[in-house]
């Protein structure tokens, strides 16, 4: 197969940009910011080119670039995308420039380091979504921890150190067990075919034939790593800390893209590699997902800090995504993928908006606000729009994702019980409660806090950041086919792989 270098350019352009920025003098802040934005925009343009060249009728991996990377252990540099990864790559390249613009004035010290880490982070995220060799995937997956760790730790809030370390240790614990599982798989493949390999497309032919008991262990090792990242209840405790302490840009990236790496991993690796284990464990994981939906919503309801509220709403929304994935129907998985994008857009917007007022008042306590609708009309409108999108109002993006997931889980033969749908649907109602209640307390009512009278409305830069997000929120809400078409073939392929594991060797598994 012919190598296509486009994807490699896309992955490494931000890194190259970051390295170039390191050589700029510290005091040339404007130049550093512009360079950062420039490189993230170049990445965005390349991803658009990839989008237009992408053939959504083809279920195979496209834009493949493959060469032998490490001779001794047969590791390839192997990248390629299907519809699912394409959508998430677009999300990444779309969100990164927006976060850089949004932090134009909020990041004041160590601007160079900040821009550098953001660009390195982008390379890491793109690499995770494009890798088709498990070793390469793991490298990106882990290396990405370093920039995020610094972003939380240097530019974060009061408890940033605790949050940064907790984030790092949690993720590390999960992913190291996945590393053992990856090596085990590679060694297993070596015993069967005679060649140690971490090539995902090769492992797809071998892994499904692993004996069921072992498959369960492998599945759990992978799933633990992804579940911590998602985060699935009860592995979510790092998330509120990390979100609340991270600077706005960090929270947006964290919610917008990083969490999706967990759900992406479940969909990309767990389902097709371990189909037997998937079918056995799907109901249990779905139970955790539903608990997460309700628990996240209930905890969000009682938060007094806006950012914490949005953070817990993430636990709830990501619960929907996991439910969608493990219902294993075309509708639910497509809904899950679209919901990943939705959550990135609407939660990203919510974090940005919280950041907007926080920058002015330096408080996120809901009780400190009230009655600001007249003072900052643009902000009030944007917050309403983002909240409605997050709630899942028909006509906006959230509705499409949640509807498809609920529909799919209702039909699901794997879950085989409509209780999942009933409980998950209650999460939608709770979402309306906690978000609208927050909106009411922040925006409506009487203006009691005298400090708020001088609150300035969103400036043109902040509005400029919101507009593209809102466009996509409406677009997905009204005409989701644009996006569903991209993922349809890839989704069907995953479902086929789960339901028809290639039993190469029944004898070996017994």
């Amino acid at each position, binding site marked *: 197969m012919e190598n296509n270098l486009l994807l490699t350019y896309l992955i490494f352009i931000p890194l190259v940009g970051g390295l170039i920025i390191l050589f700029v003098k510290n005091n040339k802040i404007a130049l550093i910011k512009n360079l950062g934005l420039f490189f993230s925009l170049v990445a965005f343009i390349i991803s658009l080119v990839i989008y237009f060249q992408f053939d959504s009728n083809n279920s195979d991996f496209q834009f493949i670039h493959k060469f032998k990377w490490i001779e*001794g252990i047969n590791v390839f540099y192997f990248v390629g995308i299907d519809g699912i990864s394409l959508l998430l790559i677009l999300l990444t390249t779309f969100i990164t420039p927006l976060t850089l613009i949004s932090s134009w004035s909020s990041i004041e010290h160590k601007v160079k380091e900040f821009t550098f880490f953001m660009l390195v982070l982008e390379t890491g995220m793109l690499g995770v979504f494009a890798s088709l060799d498990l070793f390469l995937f793991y490298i990106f997956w882990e290396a990405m921890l370093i920039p995020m760790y610094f972003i939380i*730790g240097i530019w974060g809030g009061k408890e940033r150190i605790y949050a940064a*370390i907790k984030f*790092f240790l949690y993720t590390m614990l999960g992913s190291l067990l996945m590393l*053992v599982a990856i090596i085990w798989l590679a060694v297993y493949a*070596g015993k069967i075919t005679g060649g140690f390999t971490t090539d995902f497309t090769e492992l797809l032919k071998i892994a499904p034939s692993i004996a069921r008991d072992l498959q369960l262990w492998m599945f759990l090792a992978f799933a633990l790593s992804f579940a911590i990242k998602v985060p699935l209840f009860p592995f979510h405790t790092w998330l509120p800390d990390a979100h609340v302490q991270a600077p706005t840009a960090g929270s947006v990236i964290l919610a917008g893209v990083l969490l999706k790496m967990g759900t992406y991993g479940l969909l990309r690796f767990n389902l097709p590699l371990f189909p037997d284990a998937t079918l056995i464990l799907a109901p249990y994981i779905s139970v955790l997902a539903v608990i997460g939906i309700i628990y996240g919503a209930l905890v969000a309801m009682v938060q007094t800090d806006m950012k914490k509220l949005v953070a817990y709403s993430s636990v709830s929304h990501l619960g929907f995504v996991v439910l969608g994935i493990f219902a294993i129907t075309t509708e639910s998985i497509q809904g899950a993928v679209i919901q990943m994008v939705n959550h990135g857009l609407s939660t990203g917007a919510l974090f940005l908006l919280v950041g907007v007022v926080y920058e002015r008042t330096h408080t996120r306590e809901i009780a400190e606000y009230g009655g600001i609708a007249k003072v900052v009309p643009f902000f009030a409108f944007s917050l309403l729009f983002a909240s409605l999108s997050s709630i899942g109002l028909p006509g906006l993006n959230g509705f499409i994702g949640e509807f498809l997931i609920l529909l799919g889980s209702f039909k699901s033969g794997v879950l085989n019980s409509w209780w999942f749908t009933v409980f998950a649907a209650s999460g939608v109602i709770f979402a309306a409660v906690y978000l609208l209640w927050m909106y009411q307390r922040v925006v409506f009512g009487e203006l009691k806090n005298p400090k708020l009278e001088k609150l300035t409305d969103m400036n043109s830069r902040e509005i400029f950041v919101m507009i593209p997000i809102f466009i996509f929120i409406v677009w997905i809400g009204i005409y989701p086919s644009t996006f569903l078409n991209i993922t349809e073939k890839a989704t069907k392929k995953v479902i086929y792989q789960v339901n028809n594991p290639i039993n190469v060797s029944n004898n070996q598994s017994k």
Partner: protein
Amino acid sequence: MFNNLQEFYFFLPVILLSAGILISVTIELYSKKSVISLSWFSVVLFFIVGILSLATIDSKSVILQNMVATGGYVNIFYALFNFTGMIVCLLSVDYLKKYDALFGEYYILLQTSVLGMMLMAAAKDLFVIFLGLELMSVSFYVLAGINRKRGSAIEASLKYFLLGAFATGFIVYGIALIYGTAETTSLDVIASKFIQLSNNLLFITGVLLFLIGFSFKIAAFPFHMWVPDVYQGSPSTISAFFSTGGKTAAFAAIIVSLFALFTSGASKIITPYLSVISVLSMFFGSIVAISQTNIKRMLAYSSISNAGYLLIGLAAGNSEGIAGVIFYLTAYTLMNLGAFGIVSIIESKEEKNLDIYDYSGLSNKQPLLSALLSLLMFSLAGIPPFAGFFGKYYIFMAAIKSDLTILAILGVLSSVISVYFYLRIVVLLYFKESQYDLNVLKTNSGMIALYISSLLIVILGIFPGKFLSIINSTL
């Protein structure tokens, strides 16, 4: 002595270093400013011998009446020891000035200890191992206390000497039992008789005593008691040397003496022993390091825990394990030379600035040193894309191939614990504000040493393939 010119040529790295030592002694005798000239002479000498070792890597043979092996992985070890020596010399040039410890002997002892290490790696006979070991150890005892005005250095030296001599006793007793049962000291002959001798209790006791003796030298739990005190009390550059060169040499000795075992699969007899001390070392080192506030003590416990990871490679008992150990030893040498190097640069007179809290907010004043130290900490913690990660990956892979998956799982769990204390340094460097001004004297020679180590860590992390295939081709 040499049968022909080719043997002489094969043995040239050792001969060259020995000649260098004689020249150094002469310089020391007749030159008044010997310290300066000797330091640069040693750098050049180590560099030349190191390059020569790599250049003659294909000279695989056994020479000197089956006493010494040349070529192959032996030469990789040669290069590693000389590289370590070179970096330590570069770091020492300005470090010694801080303590007014300008002794020419310092560099001569570095050279003799490297010679000892080379003999250990090249040995084909138990006597040669013992010879190399003593040459190295005696030089080490003196080096630990080279700064004779400091009480802590003398304490370190004495402690090291007493426990080191104790360990040597184990090794000699082990050798005696092996000789008594196998009736030879030639490693090849012992290897060929190993299976039939493995029922002989005396022989197995001998092998175990031999291993226990070396467990002291590699700083494995429960034979680690000397490590924290010695690393803390010795000059920082010498601690760097102990933790890298000393450990590598001891591992080299274990590998050469038991190599036949590891490749023939007969190592199952010693696997339980290796596995147990490996797991204990990893967890003991990682857990105790968390409570350390002296950075040299912290690195000492990290060194104990790293001995554990390396032992996994030996316990795996296959050629991947050996290759993994050699790779990880290289990565570990680079990482520890860098880490102790930065410690030695930041350290000021009277053993100041050795507390980890002295590093608070260092990134504001010393962005470059902080960035390098963070890189080293991430690599030590085993985070990709640095060399430390790949070394661990390869060792775990070897363990899983030998169906020792549990060792790999315990290994990664201990890694997670160790992340905590490695990252604490990064936390202090970047996330905390400095309490007081730290006067750091960055020197060119020291910085060159740091650049070389850090650059190699990144290169070996991203492109390990080339080095790995060199190692594999020599096994």
